[in-house]
């Protein structure tokens, strides 16, 4: 198995760091799936039986990498599945962020430290003509073929209602506050493009109304789901990814599905509904 990719465009590097940062904050362990066309980051909820992923993120290799090469498990299964501890990558990222813009970032699958590693080679600019090369080796586990099925692409869902989310910044600050009041909130969307977020506690009930949202799809007149505020707030913290739009699908009582859409990547976030009855 082989994999190497090189990024030179500062915007791509920035975006890549942003997405990777998102993964590291949302999950403990993360799966990297490499195919000939796309790079996938998958975070699954730990300690649950449900096979559905929490995050599913697909990156277009052609957009991010100026040079790219991979050789999968076999010609039939020409893919690579790696598992890494998100925290380790977070450290690499902090090195990247502190030093400002890197000239280039190379990512390779190597065999060092007696285990397979994902090697980040970061070429940093310096005051003098000498360039600095920072190398991070992140130990990874190769996911055996028989477990690949655990990380299948989630099936296209059929939402009851699907709307575009309002400004994330505004929504984030509201969710942040609500988080201080309660653990759970109920999201309710209508086919008229009204989204409400409600928390109820013994001391207070708070409802925020966002109206005039663009409705992408409607099967029902309305739908609502109760979700964990901490998770929603974690996710909304990634507004800096600057997606073109964020689509929110609601499946009555079951699921809130957030989809960051951009030309070069898609990031899907699954928030399972909590039964509060």
């Amino acid at each position, binding site marked *: 198995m082989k994999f190497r990719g090189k990024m030179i465009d500062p915007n791509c590097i920035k975006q890549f760091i942003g997405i990777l940062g998102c993964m590291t904050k949302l999950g403990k362990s993360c799966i990297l799936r490499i195919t000939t066309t796309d790079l996938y980051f998958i975070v699954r909820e730990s300690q649950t039986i449900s096979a559905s992923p929490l995050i599913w993120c697909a990156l277009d290799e052609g957009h991010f990498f100026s040079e790219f090469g991979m050789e999968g498990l076999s010609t039939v299964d020409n893919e690579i599945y790696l598992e890494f501890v998100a925290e380790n990558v977070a450290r690499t990222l902090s090195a990247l962020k502190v030093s400002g813009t890197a000239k280039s970032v190379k990512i390779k699958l190597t065999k060092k430290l007696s285990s397979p590693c994902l090697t980040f080679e970061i070429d940093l600019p310096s005051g003098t003509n000498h360039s600095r090369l920072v190398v991070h080796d992140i130990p990874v586990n190769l996911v055996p073929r028989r477990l690949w099925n655990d990380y299948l692409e989630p099936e296209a869902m059929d939402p009851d209602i699907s709307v575009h989310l309002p400004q994330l910044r*505004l929504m984030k*600050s509201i969710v942040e506050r609500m988080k201080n009041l309660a653990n759970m909130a109920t999201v*309710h969307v209508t086919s008229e493009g009204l989204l*409400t977020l*409600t928390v109820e506690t013994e001391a207070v009930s708070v409802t*925020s*109304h966002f109206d*005039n949202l663009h409705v992408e799809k409607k099967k029902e007149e309305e739908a609502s789901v109760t979700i964990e505020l901490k998770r929603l707030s974690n996710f909304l913290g990634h507004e800096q990814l600057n997606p073109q739009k964020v689509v929110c699908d609601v499946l009555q009582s079951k699921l809130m599905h957030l989809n960051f859409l951009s030309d070069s990547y898609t990031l899907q976030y699954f928030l399972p509904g909590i039964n509060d009855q």
Partner: protein
Amino acid sequence: MFLFNNKQQFLVRINPTNRQRLINVLHKLLITKTRAGSFPASECGEFSQLPKTSHVKLQQFETFVMPRFSSQNVPVEQNHVLMIRMDNAKIISHILKAINFKENSVFCCTKDGLKVTVEDMKSVQLNAFIEPGIFQSYVVKEEEIKFQLNLTVLLECLNVFGSSGLQSGTSPALKLYYNGHGTPVSILLEESGVITDCKIRTVHFDPVLDYDFGTSNVIGRIIMSSECLKEVFCELDSTSDCVQFSMSPDSANFRITTFGHSGTYHVDIPKASDVIESLRCTSPVSFKYKLSLMKPSIRPLGIAQKVSLRIDDTGLICFQFMIKVEDNHNCYIDFYCPADVDFEEDE
């Protein structure tokens, strides 16, 4: 959503967003009320036929409940005994944040303004006074309206759109209303087209201490810049249990003393200095106060322009902080703390 009056009747204001929830709550409520025997069984019978599915049409529900139970109640909007409207909710949250050293707060509204009291252990008390001029509209229909609620929750609500400083960031518009004893305080906030409505439950009202601070008993009074006093307060020796304020007609200084492990510190502020605007003292004053009890005064001190310090003959100290909130409006926060008797006896 539910308003109970003491006759076990209720008015349901239907909010489409919570229909399913509402029905569920109604069902639960029915069961508990029936068990408690406080709900006439005849009415229950009809209630139990409420559709249980989530696909009930809103109209169905409305016709089912409204005519029967809302007939005796005038529309909710006209029931307000208190209505406050302001264009910038930041101002009120700025003031209230400064007194939020305990969760419980008592609101007292009269035509002269709004007074919010937070106290601890029936001794230390912080009062915020907000004059009606700060609000765009302030309607009080009764002589005095008092209610108690969780101030921390109120502040979370007021800052729902973000809480950067008074000048910067967002400034949501606020409408607050209250319908009288036993009802929640409703708050509507609007910012960039997004509306948030909050209903904060009021709790049983505990009377607060009324410090009778008559001007005749005041033996020492200083008006000074809060900046200077804040610096002094922040640097007080924290190993000391108490802090002593002293002044006398003969002395040239206002003295603040701490008694810590490493020694006794005096901070002397000369009467003639620029930071003291006026100092009046009729007889020598020297009282000690628990340092821990003085702590809640630091936050209002931080946002105040000026502070007036008064001590009466029993040692009760009162700080009055003047806080400039808008071009020509000031808010005031009072801080009361009684002198520590134990320390007096030690001497």
